[in-house]
């Protein structure tokens, strides 16, 4: 089962800051709820995990991530990910093209076009929820991303800061596990919100 998602999120920082942050895969992974880079395999290849918790059960995906086509002029890159859960009952693959575009007021926007495909249990039992879940995860990711780049921007603007500080955001807030129940609540809340706003419109 494959879905395509195209999203643009405004970012509270300059395009340069956002682009710099985007290339730091470990930091970016930190923004992904439940995701963690565990090992660097090469210049642009990493091993990582995504942990999701549904009630008492924990599902742990392991896989590899690779950065490709890094294009500083266009401020765009491609991220390929592939993983299976530890008991081998589900697999997921992601192909994401991310781009930083300049926006009004010296700020920027993060745009992503991604194709996510899942197979196994995740497709069979989670298929119907995939679009909504993916949107929620991306929203959380964008929120974390925004917080990180805004912190980075503030740090840079602060007097006395050096280039060496750019590694700081790696210890990001995102490395917690993805809590599916909380996610489900967020989806439900958003659905309600959309439902009522449509009515009033």
């Amino acid at each position, binding site marked *: *089962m*494959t879905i395509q998602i195209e999203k643009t999120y405004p970012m509270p920082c300059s395009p340069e800051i956002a682009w710099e942050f985007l290339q730091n895969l470990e930091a970016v992974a930190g923004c992904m709820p439940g995701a963690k880079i565990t090992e660097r395999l090469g210049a642009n290849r990493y091993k990582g995990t995504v942990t999701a918790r549904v009630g008492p059960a924990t599902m742990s995906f392991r896989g590899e991530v690779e950065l490709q086509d890094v294009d500083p002029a266009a401020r765009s890159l491609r991220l390929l990910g592939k993983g*299976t859960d*530890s*008991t*081998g*009952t*589900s*697999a997921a693959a992601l192909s994401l093209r991310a781009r930083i575009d300049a926006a009004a007021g010296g700020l920027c926007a993060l745009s992503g076009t991604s194709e996510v*495909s*899942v*197979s*196994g*249990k995740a*497709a*069979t*039992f989670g*298929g*119907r929820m995939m679009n909504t879940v993916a949107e929620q995860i991306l929203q959380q990711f964008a929120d974390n991303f925004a917080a990180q780049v805004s912190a980075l921007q503030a740090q840079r603007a602060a007097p006395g800061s050096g280039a060496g500080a750019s590694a700081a955001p790696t210890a990001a807030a995102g490395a917690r596990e993805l809590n599916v129940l909380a996610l489900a609540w967020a989806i439900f809340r958003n659905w309600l919100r959309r439902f009522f706003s449509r009515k009033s419109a």
Partner: protein
Amino acid sequence: MAASSDALERDAKLQGVGSSRLRKEDARFIRGKGTYIDDIKLPGMLFGAIVRSPYAHARIKSIDKTKALAVPGVVAVLVADDLKPVKLHWMPTIGGDVQAVLADKKVCFQMQEVAMVIASDRYSAADGADLVEVEYEELPAIVDPHKALLPDAPIIREDIADKDEVGHGKRTHPNHIFTWEAGDKAGTDAVFASAAVTVREEILNPRVHPCPLETCGCVASFDKVTGQLTVYITSQAPHLVRTVVAMLSGIPESKIRIVGGDIGGGFGNKVPIYPGYVVAIVASIVTGVPIKWIESRIENISTTGFARDYHGIGELAADKDGRIKALRFTALADHGAFNSHVSATKLPAGLFSICTGSYDIPKAYCRVDAVYTNKAPGGVAYRCSLRVTEAVYLIERMVDVLAQKLGIDKAEIRRRNFVKADKFPYTTSLGWTLDSGNYQVALDKVLKAVDYEGLRREQAAKRAKGELMGIGVCTFTEIVGAGPTKVCDILGIGLFDSCDIRVNPTGSAIARLGTMSQGQGHATTYAQIIATELGLSSDDVQIEEGDTDKAPYGAGTWGSRSTPVGGAAAALAARKIRAKAQKIAAHLLEVGEGDLEWEVDRFKVKGNPAQAKTMKEIALTAHTGNLPAGMEPGLDGTEYYDPPNLTYPFGAYVCVVDIDRFTGETKVRRFYALDDCGTRINPMIIEGQIHGGLTEAFAVAFGQAIPFDENGNHLGNSLMDYFLPTAVETPHWETDHTVTPSPHHPIGAKGVAESPHVGGIPCFSNAVVDAFAHLGVTHMDMPHTAYRVWQQCKALGINKR
């Protein structure tokens, strides 16, 4: 001979053939006293849980049992390599193919069996199964059968990739199973070339699943001391299972006992032999401990006996008056990853060639190409999928398509094409000899009952207002009761059936048959047949099936074969007993056998009715000794019955639907079903069968489908998605009948349970399509869910207010 009122009274007391007596088995069912597979509990029993493939097509790189074996209670984890030493990692299927018992190096469908975890209780087994770590390398999957034979298609079955054939003739591609054809191709093509009118339609019977209430399972128990293997199993054909287990295991068949207890619905889902059974049996042979394996609902829907997945193309050629001159049907059959579709050696596409239906069609040709895909195997199931459902669906839809093309009424076009009543027995252009039928009378009765003309007038008025109302007509002919052993076999074993009756000294009887009830009410109907033949009360006739140590060999219950074959065996075994009883009566009454006549429950001396011996009296004599010289004591009879032909029940159905063009919702306003199954043994049970079959037809037509994504992932294998109609959704059924006895069956009976399913599905589809007929729509594929029907409304631009 005018029966006396006394005789009529005695006859009524027997509650024999024709009586709507209550079902004998219901006393235990309604009290919750049935014994289903999961009720079997043996001392020391272990439980098996299956680890299944998450992928539709993948190579197995490694299997790590360590974590699973560490779970408290887990005794063993079996994988293909563990079964190899006993050569049981592969098994033969009933389709002439082989199937992996546990995946050997690769998996070919999602949820394929990869390992079985054996544990002391069900929970530990399930926990262990979760922890078996399997490393897969995913391969591209084939989901669409149309892509299976492309030159660059991935090869699904590497194990047989270089085999020229897999049991049914030459293969043309590694994913090709067989091509089967029947009829006169050249002659048919010639008629098409010069016909006044031809019609063509692509018609899909989607993949569905019968989803019986009870899932599959078994308890295998091997006694290492005696070498005896007992298997309690959900099987519609216990004797065939015994033969296959003997062939597989090398244990002498005499030391294998297969027991089918009460079965909570089969519908063909419980005919094949599944890997779970085999692994449980092997595990018990190895451990010497009983092993229980019970399927979950999701496992049942995903992996065991699905139905259909037939991608058909129907073509008819006719004259301008709508008289059909030729028929050409082809189908692409998606058999999944292994060919375990039950099929006779000579009939790989089952009984598909019954597709000429109730019509007198001079030329016909049909062809079926079967292919492998990365889906679960099976294809036998669901209230007749010896491909009769698909065949009848095609012809009944195509007759409607032709009627629309010519502007002829859909009842009228059937009338013009029926095989006339005086032409029976009638041999179709595809070779079946329809034993009996009276189609016109049946259709007329139904049209009158529903006021067909009135309905058409109402429809015209509604169409004028922009409303959608559809009237579906279906006049089907079924083919049931496999079968003559000269045409029908499974793994070479002829499809005869058997009955062994023993009459006790006090005048009760026990009868054992090779069939296997799964809810059909055999304990009642067979008793009624024997009651009428022997003049003993059906209350006093006990029926036993399913225990291979007790019952004589038979091919089981599927394809509506119990009454046509088992019922015939029961009647003929009883007649053997009656013939012996007549000799005893003649001896006791000191008259010649020819001086006696049978009346209900006794032999009377002709012209002296006071001189009589009842069957009960004779039964006692047979055991006490005053017998004719040289006669052996006892009063038993056994019959192995090989029918001369199949039976051909038929029916005429009308369905009326109202469709909301804004929501696509379809409401079945009326459904009138007339069935002719020849002699009616228990009208109440027949009616129950028809209600059940129509409800399942409704389910298929309006909601059931097993969808897959492009990678072969199931998208609907739980009851959250899979439609099972409840009393809320199910329409009201009106039933009716005519009686056209089968001329070759001992009591003139035909099978009935499949008819309402086979005839019901096209009737619903015909009604839905008819609602759109005036807008130029000729066909809509099932399921007719509100969303899909709404899409049709939207395409026509009629969904807006």
